[in-house]
């Protein structure tokens, strides 16, 4: 894509589709820079969900009546659309869950509890989100498998030499975050997957911060499993995705049992239905699936390459501006490198929570805390950081407002 195409991103037009971005608090328009936590939802997505509830709300799969047929088709087609979006082979490989965390737990319970045993090894990275870190840590305790962590270097990147040492024939699964929600690091997940496969291990990639912001092709990565959430990609809360290779999913035991997932049930035995329904018992998130479908359409209409370019540009701008302040410590890879659209930092002498409260007085919405990466913060040697994270509707002017508001904190805490 040429740079001219990238420049043609119509941010003002995009912003018009988000009434929430016009909200004011104490006369100041909100500056929403908390997108790594959740993104805002554009009108077409809200409209699609509203249309579902107003026009064809019904339960799916088993209904003979018109409304259920429409709802079922919409629900099933949402799987097809997501499969196409990440280049999976088809709806059989796309399981709808509640969120990325549930996707990780589905895999950990269904595959991990049944397959892992003492002596096996689970390889994670030091920058894992608690969603995968805590899950594998606890599955390790229950199965006797050891959990090992690939180190990060001083620039916030994975030490791949260490990865090559850690991943051995004892490794059963390599679980890595695609884009770090704290450091912004973009990990070489294809290379990690290759390493896992060389040793007969599986790979699971946490794509919660990748799928919203860049083109993701699961076939190209080669990942066996890949997870992400709807609400971080202009879609609704309450829906997440677990992608898995069909032959692996077919061999896996269901994680949740109930209606809608079975082929045949007697008082003694049950057999499971087809993929992906085998992993989606009970009434699923139907309106949310409709919303996620609309979100994928909306994102692809803009173009994932453009979204990535816009976010990288904003992240680099924010990095440079914060860096130029002199009293701001920034975490993760240097500006200009391949980075996710976020910047985590600390202002010297001001606790992240105090800074974030002061930024809120300027209606600048950012996040403070450990961002569900406590061990990583321990390693960085700080209890918390402030994180500004961007999406397709953010502008340089908004970054300027963030930087300008730092002065207020400096004066208060001087």
């Amino acid at each position, binding site marked *: 894509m040429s740079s001219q195409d990238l420049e043609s991103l119509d941010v003002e037009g995009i912003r018009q589709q988000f009434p929430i971005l016009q909200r004011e608090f*104490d*006369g*100041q328009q909100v500056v929403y820079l908390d997108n790594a936590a959740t993104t805002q939802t554009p009108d077409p997505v809200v409209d699609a969900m509203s249309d579902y509830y107003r026009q064809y709300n019904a339960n799916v799969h088993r209904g003979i009546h018109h409304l259920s047929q429409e709802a079922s088709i919409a629900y099933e087609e949402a799987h097809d659309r997501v499969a196409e979006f990440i280049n999976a082979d088809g709806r059989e490989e796309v399981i709808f869950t509640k969120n990325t965390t549930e996707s990780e737990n589905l895999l950990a319970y269904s595959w991990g509890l049944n397959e892992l045993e003492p002596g096996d090894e689970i390889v994670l990275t030091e920058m894992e989100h608690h969603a995968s870190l805590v899950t594998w840590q606890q599955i390790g305790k229950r199965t006797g498998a050891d959990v090992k962590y690939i180190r990060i270097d001083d620039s916030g990147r994975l030490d791949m030499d260490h990865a090559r040492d850690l991943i051995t024939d004892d490794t059963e699964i390599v679980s890595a975050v695609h884009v770090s929600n704290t450091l912004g690091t973009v990990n070489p997940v294809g290379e990690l997957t290759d390493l896992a496969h060389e040793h007969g291990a599986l790979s699971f990639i946490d794509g919660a911060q990748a799928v919203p912001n860049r083109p993701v092709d699961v076939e190209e990565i080669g990942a066996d499993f890949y997870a992400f959430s709807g609400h971080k990609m202009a879609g609704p809360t309450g829906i997440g995705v677990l992608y898995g290779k069909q032959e692996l999913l077919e061999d896996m035991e269901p994680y949740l049992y109930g209606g809608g997932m079975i082929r045949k049930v007697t008082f003694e035995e049950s057999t499971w239905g087809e993929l992906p329904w085998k992993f989606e018992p009970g009434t699923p998130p139907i309106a949310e699936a409709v919303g996620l479908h609309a979100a994928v359409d909306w994102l692809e209409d803009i173009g994932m390459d453009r979204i990535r370019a816009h976010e990288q540009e904003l992240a680099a701008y924010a990095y440079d501006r914060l860096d130029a302040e002199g009293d701001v410590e920034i975490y993760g890879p240097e500006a200009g490198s391949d980075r996710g659209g976020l910047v985590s930092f600390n202002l010297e002498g001001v*606790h*992240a*929570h*105090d800074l974030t*409260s*002061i930024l*809120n*007085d*300027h209606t600048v919405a950012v996040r*403070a*805390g*450990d961002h569900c990466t406590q061990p990583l*913060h321990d390693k960085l040697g700080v*209890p*918390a950081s402030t994180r500004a994270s961007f999406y397709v509707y953010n502008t340089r002017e908004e970054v300027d407002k963030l930087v300008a508001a730092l002065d*207020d904190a400096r*004066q*208060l*805490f001087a």
Partner: protein
Amino acid sequence: MGLGSDMYRQQILDHYKNPRNYGELEDPTFTHVGENPMCGDEIRIDVKLEEDGESDDEETIKQVAFSGDGCAISQASASMLSKELQGKTVEELLEMDRDDVIDMLGVDISPMRVKCAVLAEKVAQDGAEIHRGELDVDKTTTED
């Protein structure tokens, strides 16, 4: 708006920058620690009660010291509490609630920061209850 967030009035900043009774007591009657996992705030509180013969009431707080690390709200609250508690009875300490702490701070605390504000009070109260044998925890956390 702008400079002088409601939450960061001069009194709070003063206690944060110049904490009162910061440190540890040589011979505390009880000592207790706690944390606010969400923020990473940590507080240790040492309390010395009046001893036999010193006063009519052995349950009166004679001296308080605190140490720790964290955001301005948590640390200023601990500093102010250390002053506030001197001369109070343990019963009065245990009767304190969230609103008393917010009154003591004298500012509006946004809902998400209340945990920072009440950490010191909870640590002191749990310490007193452990001292009385009514509670058994190693560390207080605001997530409980």
